[in-house]
């Protein structure tokens, strides 16, 4: 048993606890520790990804209670990829936060580390109830991080976010307990075996449990009609928190992928039960996000709607369901998490030079560094709306090519391309307003902080690197998609499971 598997959970857990104990320590010490722990996650995640690259499924059996008893962690290629994205976003966000955003309230770094515990745990767990527990850990830290730094806007957005997610947690518990009541297990692989073999009279209840889980994950992922909390929450949060939140919707999508390929996948009567539902939902989410982006009167609100567009795009890829579509979606997932994280940081850099106008899209004093920020905004906008030469383009092309059937192609291409056009219009309108329509007021004297710039550039440059290394990356993701769709090895983790 490889103890490295549990390190992505333990490292932030111990760092966070230590930070709580050291509340009296000076801010530089806290920042140093938090930076060190966040950046240590990256080599760890890369090592786990290399380990998972051999295609074997690795279990970490807590307390040596062999499955299906006890709690297991499960490392496959998908978990490893998600861990790398989290580590990158966390590293750059905490770097950005260390230049001042963490001073506005107490315990920013401890909360940040606990949030990482929840996120990494959700990606690694192989147990449905444990998934719930890690969801709660990441949610309660995200509540506190969202409200960090006060202000009426944050409290207002925070209240909606908290109440909605508490209702979501209740539904999650209902779904999980129905599954347990019918199958007597919570281990995901064991659940897959038992759901596939369930008697026909249990099928309606299992289906109900599955749809309850879909509602919960849809709420986390901000799928229409459960997306209304996202724009206000993301635009109210401070920049590093919003950048880390770029992974939050992806956790919902990850859970959908995990639960509905494994537990409700396979050969059982419930195979593909959500496909008819998520396809129209995906396209509707994409369209609503694009409309929202066009209507936004605030730069951060605009970016939040771009997150909704990316959720719709990813869900469309999941709904197509083939290995090619899944690997294209995973490529797009990495791209959209990192670039939208970078965009939230960039928006904050821009807003800091706009004085009292803040993020509202109307004329303001000229920016202090229009060329630098403008070039960054231009590159990020081109990438996020899916034009060459950046990663958004490659992701979209792969996704469109993976649609094979007649009506699917027509719908996907029409909605995806129109959505891309809408994003382009919204971003160019916002960009020309911010950078060219300056009023006569005196520009602010303060230049952008170099470390903040570095953090923002780091995330945005991922888009370029993903193009340069598209070949090897795509190879890994293709293998990831194949691994997800081949249930045999997962079922064989349970003694006597899988033929």
């Amino acid at each position: 048993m490889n103890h490295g598997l549990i390190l992505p959970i333990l490292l932030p857990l111990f760092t966070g606890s230590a930070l709580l104990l050291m509340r009296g320590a000076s801010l530089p010490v806290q920042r140093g520790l938090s930076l060190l722990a966040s950046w240590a996650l990256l080599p760890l995640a890369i090592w786990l990804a290399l380990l998972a690259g051999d295609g074997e499924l690795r279990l970490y059996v807590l307390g040596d209670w062999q499955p299906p008893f006890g709690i297991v962690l499960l490392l496959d290629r998908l978990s490893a990829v998600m861990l790398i994205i989290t580590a990158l976003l966390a590293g750059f966000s905490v770097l950005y936060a260390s230049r001042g955003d963490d001073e506005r309230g107490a315990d920013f770094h401890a909360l940040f580390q606990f949030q990482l515990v929840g996120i990494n745990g959700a990606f690694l767990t192989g147990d449905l109830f444990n998934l719930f527990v890690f969801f709660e850990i990441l949610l309660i830290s995200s509540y506190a991080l969202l409200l960090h730094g006060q202000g009426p806007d944050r409290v207002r957005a925070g209240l909606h976010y908290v109440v909605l997610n508490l209702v979501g947690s209740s539904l999650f518990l209902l779904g999980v307990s129905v599954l347990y009541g019918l199958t007597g297990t919570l281990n995901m692989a064991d659940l897959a075996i038992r759901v596939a073999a369930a008697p026909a009279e249990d099928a309606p209840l299992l289906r109900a449990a599955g749809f309850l889980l879909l509602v919960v994950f849809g709420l986390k992922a901000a799928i229409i009609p459960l997306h209304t909390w996202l724009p206000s929450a993301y635009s109210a949060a401070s920049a590093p928190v919003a950048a880390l939140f770029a992974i939050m919707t992806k956790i919902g999508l990850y859970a959908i992928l995990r639960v509905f390929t494994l537990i409700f996948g396979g050969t059982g009567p419930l195979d593909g039960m959500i496909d008819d539902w998520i396809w129209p939902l995906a396209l509707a989410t994409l369209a609503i996000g694009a409309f929202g982006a066009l209507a936004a009167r605030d730069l951060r609100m605009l970016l939040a709607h771009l997150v909704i567009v990316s959720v719709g795009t990813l869900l469309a890829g999941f709904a197509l369901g083939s290995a090619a579509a899944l690997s294209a979606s995973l490529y797009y997932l990495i791209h959209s998490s990192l670039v939208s994280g970078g965009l939230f940081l960039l928006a904050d850099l821009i807003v800091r030079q706009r004085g009292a106008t803040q993020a509202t899209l109307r004329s303001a004093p000229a920016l202090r560094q229009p060329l630098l920020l403008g070039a960054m905004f231009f590159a990020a906008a081109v990438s996020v709306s899916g034009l060459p030469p950046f990663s958004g383009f490659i992701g979209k092309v792969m996704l469109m090519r993976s649609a094979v059937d007649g009506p699917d192609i027509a719908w996907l291409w029409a909605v995806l391309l129109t959505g891309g056009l809408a994003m382009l219009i919204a971003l160019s309108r916002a960009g020309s307003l911010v950078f060219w329509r300056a009023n006569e007021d005196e520009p602010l004297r303060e230049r952008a902080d170099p470390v903040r710039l570095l953090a923002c550039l780091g995330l945005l440059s991922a888009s370029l690197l993903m193009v340069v290394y598209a070949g090897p990356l795509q190879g890994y993701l293709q293998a990831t998609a194949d691994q997800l769709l081949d249930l045999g090895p997962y079922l064989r983790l349970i003694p006597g499971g899988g033929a």
Partner: protein
Amino acid sequence: MEAFYAGTLGVMVASGVYLLLRARVFPVVMGLTLISYAVNLFIFSMGRLGTDTVAVVGSSETMGDPLPQALVLTAIVIGFAMTAFTVVLALRSMGEVGTDHVDGQEPRA
């Protein structure tokens, strides 16, 4: 007993949903609490209802399922923490926004 139990849970959830939709912070907190109680009872019942089924090996004829009891403990602890957080948030919202409406402003009449 099952019908009575299920009816009780139904009434609790219905009351909880009603309170949740009241759009004032305090009823919302009460509604969330009621719903989470109902959910906890529901988890407990997933180990099957019965009398004289102790979850200890050898102490009764038929053994009760210990796992839902463990799950319900976890759920209670988490629910308790979340309720405490919501109450604090509600108080802050009153202090900062100045109204107890969940949208942070009084609805226009």
